[in-house]
């Protein structure tokens, strides 16, 4: 739109720093501005994301770049979101720079770690003055040992976190530690912003309001703190071993337009008639690995082919692969509202885990005499008023086929819908009819004189 002019500053005219006299934040702002000028960035391609605290005041000092003033500690996460969008679905021209203090960096520690791990093109300027200046000088996670603050009046006794080390261990490509008055600070910020991928520059400084009055500090205080912490100054790591996140993501998941026909992947299906007068509830109970829930799913798919509505709810222990496995299926000729089964029409139990789970729900004592229970003949069933059919599931089928076999048996015996609706599905899914459902077994079930009130009278 406007012709891009080489900017001389991005700061507001006659910028007055809002910081205390002697505070390093003023240096940081001017050196950041200088670095961005040298990078000759179009202001619309600069995104300054500021945290909470004194350093969070910087957004109002910049006139032309985008500024996003965020919540405490979360600045890097918002910046990551903006960058992810920009580098994958836009032109990836945006340079996102986070300004955060030492307090915020500890709140948002995992946001920093994740941004470094992802290697998003975010540059973090960490202004570390070892305390919370805006709220009264309280000690932070960056306070050195023996540091005196209003909340450590006898000297800090907890060692400081080395954020640079943390970032290096999080595979950051560019990490530096500088003093706010360093002559080459703008050079290092320049390199950090130019670095393609995540970069962090920790800039140490002293809070003139709270650090200098209470601590015995010499002119070389910052160097001494660094030494005492066992840390180093300068560029600690600068490498480009990894592509930035957007490049990796876009090569793995290239932009592709999915057509509407692709979206509707499953083809329209044939419809069978059904003989169901009302909604019925079926409970399937077995063990993990017994394909109970997938058998129930197949039954639902068959019911849909038979023009019925259905709902299916599954339950199992949180560990997924052990203990009971339960499915509750409702099918009916009209929309199914209530998905619970208070008065089941059919209960199928193929393992001891299944019995145990149903017993813990106190189901057996509530079953009505019109309910049909299919249970494996090897299992002991608690007392119930229901019609119990003991069948040789475990003798005739492998454990993972018992539930499906039982359902096939139920469909055959009840004639709720044509058994082909079900067999057609398992032919497709398992490529075998015989193996799943031994003929003699089906015959045995079919021989059950099965009369249910919910089945239409046959002509």
């Amino acid at each position: 739109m406007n012709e891009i002019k080489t900017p001389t500053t991005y700061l507001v005219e006659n910028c007055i720093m809002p910081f205390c006299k002697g505070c390093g934040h003023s240096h940081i702002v001017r050196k950041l501005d200088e670095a961005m000028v040298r990078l000759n960035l179009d202001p619309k391609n600069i995104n300054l994301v500021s945290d909470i605290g004194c350093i969070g005041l910087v957004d109002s000092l910049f006139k032309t770049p985008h500024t996003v003033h965020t919540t405490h500690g979360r600045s890097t996460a918002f910046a990551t979101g903006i960058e992810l969008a920009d580098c994958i679905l836009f032109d990836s021209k945006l340079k996102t720079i986070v300004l955060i203090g030492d307090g915020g960096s500890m709140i948002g520690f995992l946001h920093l770690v994740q941004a470094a791990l992802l290697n998003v093109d975010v540059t973090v300027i960490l202004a570390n003055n070892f305390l919370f200046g805006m709220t009264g000088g309280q000690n932070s996670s960056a306070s050195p040992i023996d540091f005196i603050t209003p909340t450590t009046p006898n000297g800090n006794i907890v060692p400081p976190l080395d954020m640079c080390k943390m970032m290096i261990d999080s595979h950051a490509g560019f990490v530096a530690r500088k003093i706010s008055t360093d002559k080459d600070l703008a050079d290092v910020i320049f390199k950090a912003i130019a670095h393609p991928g995540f970069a962090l520059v920790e800039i140490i400084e002293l809070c003139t309001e709270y650090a200098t009055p209470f601590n015995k500090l010499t002119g070389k205080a910052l160097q001494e703190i660094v030494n005492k912490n066992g840390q180093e100054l300068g560029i600690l790591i600068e490498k480009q071993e990894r592509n930035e996140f957007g490049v990796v993501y876009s090569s793995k998941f290239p932009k592709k337009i999915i057509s509407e026909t692709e979206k509707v992947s499953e083809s329209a299906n044939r419809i069978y008639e059904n003989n169901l007068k009302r909604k019925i509830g079926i409970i399937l109970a077995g063990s993990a690995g017994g394909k109970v829930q997938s058998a129930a799913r197949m039954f639902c798919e068959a019911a849909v082919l038979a023009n019925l509505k259905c709902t299916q709810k599954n339950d199992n222990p949180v560990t997924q692969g052990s203990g009971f496995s339960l499915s509750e299926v409702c099918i009916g000729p009209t929309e199914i509202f209530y998905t619970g089964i208070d008065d089941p029409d059919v209960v199928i139990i193929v393992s001891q885990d299944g019995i145990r789970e149903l017993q813990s729900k106190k189901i057996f004592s509530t079953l009505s005499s019109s309910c049909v229970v299919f249970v494996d003949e090897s299992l002991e069933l608690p007392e119930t008023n229901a019609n119990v059919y003991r069948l040789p599931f475990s003798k005739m089928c492998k454990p993972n086929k018992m539930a499906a076999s039982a359902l096939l048996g139920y469909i055959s015996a009840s004639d709720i819908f044509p058994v082909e609706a079900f067999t057609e599905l398992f032919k497709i899914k398992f490529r075998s009819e015989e193996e799943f459902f031994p003929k003699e077994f089906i015959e045995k079930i079919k021989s059950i004189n099965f009369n249910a009130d919910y089945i239409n009278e046959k002509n």
Partner: protein
Amino acid sequence: MNSNKISNIKLRTGNQMIAEGAMRAGCKFFAGYPITPASGIYKSMIDLLQQQGDIAISSPDEISALAYCVGASMRGLKTMTATSGPGWALMIETIQYALMTETPVVIAIVQRLGPSTGGATQGAQGDILLAEFATSGGYTIPILCPSNSVECFELSMLAFKWAELLRTPVVILSDKEVGMTTDSVDYFDLKELPSALRVPFQVESISNNYRMYDYQKVSDVPAFAAVGEEWKVTATGSAHNKYGALKKNDLETLEVLHHLEEKIQARKDDLVVVKKDIQIDAQTLVISFGITARTMNESIIQAREEGKKVSSLNILSLFPVPEKEIIKAAEGVKRVVIAEENFSGQYRKVISLIIKEKEIIGVNKIGLMIKPKEILETIL
């Protein structure tokens, strides 16, 4: 056998349909963190977005998930995340930021039993007040509440429409029973909704100077400019004037704070989504929402079979509260029954003042779904 008839019925969970609705609405960015019973949305969005090269990403926690979404929305994308009560508790700081910065974002909360870790695989409708009153100051967060997979699809699309047009966060309040239960869904019956997009800032609009939070009428929704585009964005979670400048208690700043609520209140009649089944001379009105609305529907059928006269109201837009619809539905009835799966009657507390001259009865329960007979017992 009627083999000529074709259908396009698929088995879908509520979670899957929230994801499909989001895709249909043009969602381009999803950040997720696993939590039962919402993980199905996360998984579906990973599959659906990545296959077309859009962005679906795993985040290290729920705070990051929502912050990534808010950031991506500031860059100009339609974004969504999904969680349950414990994750929502962590997101409350960030949802306030989205509201304050007028950033559109959709959050699907699939409720489970609380408090605290509660019951991961147990349903509940216990986060109604926690979801709605999540802001300091009590600003309205529009909340949509589906009761089945089809409504999940439709309300997911609607949530994006509201988020975009109002420039505000919108919550889809599902629950374990809706999210993880499979329904048979006929795709031929799904209602489409035209895609909506936040109004972009243009030079002609208002003035040539972009002001991040500009409006003429206090109820207007400001035009949007994305971070990284031509117009300088000045976003802030601090109390601010129309420029986005931090100001303490000046008149314009206080007005902007009013504007955040006014833009929603002025449109609250447009935001109403209810399903009503009104019977003339009904003695009882049953009100419910979410999974319990399904129970309500079943109990209404049974009550009428018993010759009772009863009306029902399924509220899909819980907030802003559809006051007029509630008053209208309650006209002439003696008793209003409000059924919800929490022990204290959270929504009943919210709406009881609207219908205070009626006899109000709550049907409440925790740990298990409310049964039809439990509602039936309360119908006159």
